[in-house]
């Protein structure tokens, strides 16, 4: 029992150091700014002024901003940045499989687009 309390107390102590009220609000404003930037690009640059076109460039910017937001949520709101490094590695390294899966299925999708429709024996109509 005493040991359990020790872990819990230690846990609370470490996290107390990581996130105080000031830090929480500064992370909130970072997330708000990133979201606002996404809206500025989507509504302003693409939709309203027509400076940028929908396409690979804009999508890359959106995905980069999304990953940045995800980093801030996981690192600060979920406190992962303040955990032990071995735990950080364990929780993040498995996403290599997701990266692989993305490459796999998007390549497969692109293949189907060009080969499914043109197959002479199985017209996809």
């Amino acid at each position, binding site marked *: 029992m005493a040991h359990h309390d020790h872990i819990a107390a230690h846990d609370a102590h470490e996290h107390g150091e990581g996130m105080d009220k000031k830090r929480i609000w500064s992370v909130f404003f970072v997330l708000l700014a990133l979201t606002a930037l996404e809206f500025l690009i989507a509504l302003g640059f693409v939709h309203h002024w027509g400076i940028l076109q929908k396409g690979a460039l804009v999508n890359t910017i959106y995905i980069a901003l*999304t990953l940045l937001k995800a980093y801030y*949520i996981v690192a600060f709101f979920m406190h992962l940045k303040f955990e032990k490094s071995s735990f950080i590695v364990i929780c993040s390294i498995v996403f290599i499989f997701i990266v692989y899966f993305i490459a796999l299925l998007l390549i497969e999708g692109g293949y189907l687009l060009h080969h*499914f429709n043109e197959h002479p024996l199985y017209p996809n109509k």
Partner: protein
Amino acid sequence: MSTTTVSHLDKVKDGPWSGGKSPWNLEYGKIMMWFFLISDAFTFSAFLIYYGAQKFAQPTWIDADKIFQSVPGIADSGQPLVFVGIMTFILIMSSVTMVLAVEAGHRNSKQEVVKWMLWTILGGLCFIGCQAIEWSHLHHQGFWFGRNPATGLTDPDAIAAALQPYFTKEISYTAALQFSNLFFTITGFHGFHVSIGILLNIIVLFMTLNNTFERRGTYLMIEKVGLYWHFVDLVWVFVFTFFYLI
């Protein structure tokens, strides 16, 4: 020992011979919450990656700017991204109030935990409400599981007329159907997670009011539920990008 309320599971893990020392200085339940969230992240990734694969396999796709452009009660059309922007803001805001509840828990301040948990629950309910309005709007337009606005029509001109408002490039019945299925499946699965999160938040709110955590001496349970709640917010960040922006 008899005065504290610790679950049986926690007690079993206490001794040095049964893994009593945590290599990560984390409590057992918290580690398990992380592992559950990683597996849940895999499920959501699979859904979103399949959405991408479908999009890559179709020569055309529904234009998000054209399908999501109503603001309930204000404008029926012509306002892309505004309503989903409000939803995103609500969810980020409720994530902030959750992390403030966790911070209050570290200071053992019951009053503040209760206050921030109430705000978090309110935010979650608002989000679910917006989701319901969005769903009913699309359902009204003819989108649903296995259905799009042209379902049931046979005349090619009528099909084209029914689908034309949602496409910028060429029209595809299959693409509209796949979009419809995946939109309702993925936002539905996310909404289900939000609902479970609200339920968990209400449970820990009542446990706080019941002084359960005060007797335990730690508000760690708020942190564990908080991890889940932030994860729901995290998933929405990705759903928002892939459904509404791209």
